[in-house]
């Protein structure tokens, strides 16, 4: 069963762009070969909130994954054995996305509900005088 995950990892700041791209592409391919989809964005170098090992900065990478849990497990294992990766965090987001979708739908329907009564109410009032005018018109005829 495919689920949405957000995988964020930090690599050491002195890593070359080339190596980083290589690492990202291998991770992505390992997801796609297993039948999932992956999209990643590099946040770039950022200051860490606290010292990790001997690093004060790190390159942050965010990866959106849609795959089964086993695939994510495998990606995590890879990150663990990849030496330049200093930290990673996986968060499951599918339930959160579902919740947000629901809220959005409710808000949209409320907007529509507030928008629809005005056009509905408008035709009702002209309809009543029309009915009134029809009966006198038919009576003389």
């Amino acid at each position, binding site marked *: 069963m495919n689920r949405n995950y957000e995988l964020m990892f930090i690599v050491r700041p002195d890593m070359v762009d080339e190596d980083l791209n290589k690492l990202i592409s291998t991770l992505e391919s390992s997801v796609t070969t297993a039948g999932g989809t992956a999209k990643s964005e590099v946040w770039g170098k950022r200051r860490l*909130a606290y010292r990790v090992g001997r690093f004060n900065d790190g390159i942050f990478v965010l990866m959106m994954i849609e795959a089964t849990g086993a695939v994510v497990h495998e990606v995590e294992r890879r990150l663990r054995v990849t030496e330049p990766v200093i*930290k990673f*965090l996986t968060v499951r987001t599918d339930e959160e996305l579902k919740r*947000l979708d629901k809220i959005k739908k409710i808000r949209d329907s409320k907007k529509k509900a507030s928008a629809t009564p005005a056009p509905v109410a408008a035709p009702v009032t002209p309809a009543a005088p029309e009915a009134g005018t029809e009966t006198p018109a038919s009576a003389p005829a």
Partner: protein
Amino acid sequence: MAEETKTPSARVGSSGGESRPERSERPERSGPRGPRPGGGPGGPREGGRKYFRRKKVCKFCVEKIEAVNYKDVRLLAQFVAESGKITPRRLTGVCTPHQRRLSRAIKQARNIALLPFAGRAQ
């Protein structure tokens, strides 16, 4: 001449409002006395609460922020004290469901070194 007339009047009405001429005579008393009337501008009633308290509202409900995410460090940092602790609800006014999400997000952000566990971010 004017000073001479003021000082006796202050002595007579020591409980009254003319405390300024008294300051020269008792400097230790004027310190705590001065700020007291100024401290409660909202509450003129005696004995009641002297501070005007604004009604606290949940920031997330007001601004309709539904997604409380660990990546939004700027948002989360507003609810973290200087020491790195999560600010309690009673101080920030965040509603219970949002505080739950907020605390979860802050904890996730700590794990990925976006927020500090203790102390300020370096």
